[in-house]
């Protein structure tokens, strides 16, 4: 007996349900999600990243920071992300409209970075951490990126952006380590990581409590 065609048809059909349900329908549902414009400030959220931060996003993906760092804040009933201070509200689809490539991550071997820009605030950018995390946190297993810095002889006054290296990491006298353009781009990207704007689908936690 040859039931080949029938089996084949079933194989096609079962697959097609999931294909429609998980590929087609989400594209229908989310395909025209748009930024939201705040009535008070007239600013739209989220905003496209400026050139250097967009370059930095490419670099972040290319170096695989996502292997340890997630960029997603789970809802309060689905984990302790908000309590830990990784965000003021859960992350939703709208937050990522301009994220390309998307770096949600599937492993948390390190702090979540979804709101890293917010956490950083006005603090100086963590170039030293980027160069070697152990220069700041002994025993950290965060990846070092010495290739994002140039070692060069000091000519005249030391460069303004030269790294202030702690003991044990210092370079030879007369030399300095300066960030490359790529390091600056990555930093611009890290700074741009924030979504603390309330959305209709995701109010901020503090706002909720004040009500």
């Amino acid at each position, binding site marked *: 007996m040859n039931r080949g065609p029938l089996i084949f048809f079933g194989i096609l059909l079962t697959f097609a349900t999931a294909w429609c349900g998980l590929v087609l329908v989400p594209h229908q549902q989310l395909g025209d999600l748009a930024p939201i414009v705040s009535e008070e400030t007239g600013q739209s959220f989220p905003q496209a990243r400026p050139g250097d931060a967009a370059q930095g996003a490419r670099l972040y993906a290319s170096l695989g920071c996502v292997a340890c760092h997630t960029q997603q804040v789970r809802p309060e009933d689905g984990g302790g992300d908000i309590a830990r201070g990784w965000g003021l509200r859960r992350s939703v689809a709208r937050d990522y409209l301009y994220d390309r490539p998307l770096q949600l991550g599937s492993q948390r071997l390190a702090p979540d970075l979804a709101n890293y820009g917010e956490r950083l605030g006005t603090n100086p950018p963590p170039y030293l951490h980027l160069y070697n995390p152990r220069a700041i946190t002994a025993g950290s297993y965060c*990846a070092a990126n010495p290739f994002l810095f140039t070692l060069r002889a000091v000519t005249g006054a030391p460069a303004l952006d030269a790294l202030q290296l702690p003991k044990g990491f210092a370079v030879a006298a007369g030399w300095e380590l300066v960030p490359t353009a790529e390091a600056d781009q990555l930093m611009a990207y890290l700074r741009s990581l924030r979504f603390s704007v309330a959305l209709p689908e995701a109010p901020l936690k503090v706002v909720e409590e004040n009500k």
Partner: protein
Amino acid sequence: MSLTGTIAKKDAPAVHLPPPPWAELDASCQLPVLYFLLSGLAWLLVGSLLQFEAGIRLLCPDWWAVCPAMTYGRLVPAAETALVYGFASQMGLGIGLWLLVRLGRTPLVASGLIAAGNVLWNLALTVGILAILLGEGTGHGGLEMPAYSQWMLLAAYMFVGIWGVQTWAHHASGPYYASQWFLLGAMFWFPWLLTTAQLVVVTFPGRGVLPAITAAWFVGGIQHLWLTPLALAALYYFIPVITGRPLRNYHLAVVAFWSLALFGGWSGPARLIGGPVPAWIVSAGIVATVLLLIPVTIVALNTWPVLGSRLGQVCQNQVLRFLAVGVLCFVLVSLGNAVNALRFRAAVTHLSLNEWARGFAYLHGFIALTFLGAAYHVVPRLMRRDWPAPRLVSVHFWFTIVGLALVVIPAAVDGLRQGHELNDAAVPTAKIFEQLRSVFGWRVLGLALMGAGTLAFLTNFGWLLVRCWTPGIRSAAALFIDESGKSVTAR
């Protein structure tokens, strides 16, 4: 349903076959199957090395740090690509082609073209993995290779898929065995999965989280609609053939097939739980992941009674040992996945090392052990010669099992701690991550053992090939190996 009828009537698949010209059939597929198995094994070694190197990176992060190609974030996706597309997919294809020939009792169609497909496949992977290490990766989990090598891989697959399905269709009269169903499904689903994901995630990515949703669907599909059915096809053939006993409750196998086909396709988004995607998508994934327990239970009902009734043989037989642990891993991992898909569990285990451990046990336990065991059965028949060093098979087995346990158990256990502590804001973040170091230590040790096991297999394989291709050395014992596989262990 008539389909059930067809499959149910045949109680003992592949056991009561009349003796067809096995030698001729094997000869028809010798070259491509051998290519696929050998390159699969080579990629296993490469993937294990990359994984080992990544583990070292966690322990000594400053060693080799000046080289961006050796950074943790590139080694991990490169290793995953090598293991999924290089090792598991190629081994699965090699064994699948051999099964199509055996079960259909028909020679392989266009074996030369299939072998050419294998060469192209390896080329695509080599280019793709080098590209990842050089920073050209796409950054999408599961689809890390740049578009050009993904398309090359798809083209390579077409050589195999088209002629594989042709071989399937040339099946000698009689009902199809469950293994053949699984093979047909896998051969058909894989190109569809890859093409869709390629288009929607990499080539023309949708806005925002759309690529993540498609990628989650794709990764679930690669697991449950590609690797799992290939491995089940192997289990459903080798277990009855080697034990000489029919699978129990065989009429249920058809339910296993269709439920896997349906829920496997829907299960992917469970991995987006808590993520920034519409809730219904995640819910669908959770429901499907739990319902996947239906095919898993049936696989257990089909195989465990047979393995249980032949425990003595299972412990002795080189092939059955691998398969039995493979089935065990499949059941345990699926159970773990179903339980941890539930929202209250996922709040703890999602994104933790516990989740990682389940993924590792799926690939290196279920998939790898099944294919490796099957290869121990297939290769001597293809070459008409027995393994030169049966001891090395045992070395391979024990090194792999102990290594697997060292990698998986500490990660699964400590992952629970990690998950709980991350949810407890009173525990400082730095402390949580620092404590993971001991898990990484066990991981590196386990990976080293597993790599040594793989080397043992490759040594045996190389030795066998040298013997076969050296004229003059022939041992009569190897000329015939009976179908029960006994002579693989005993002379």
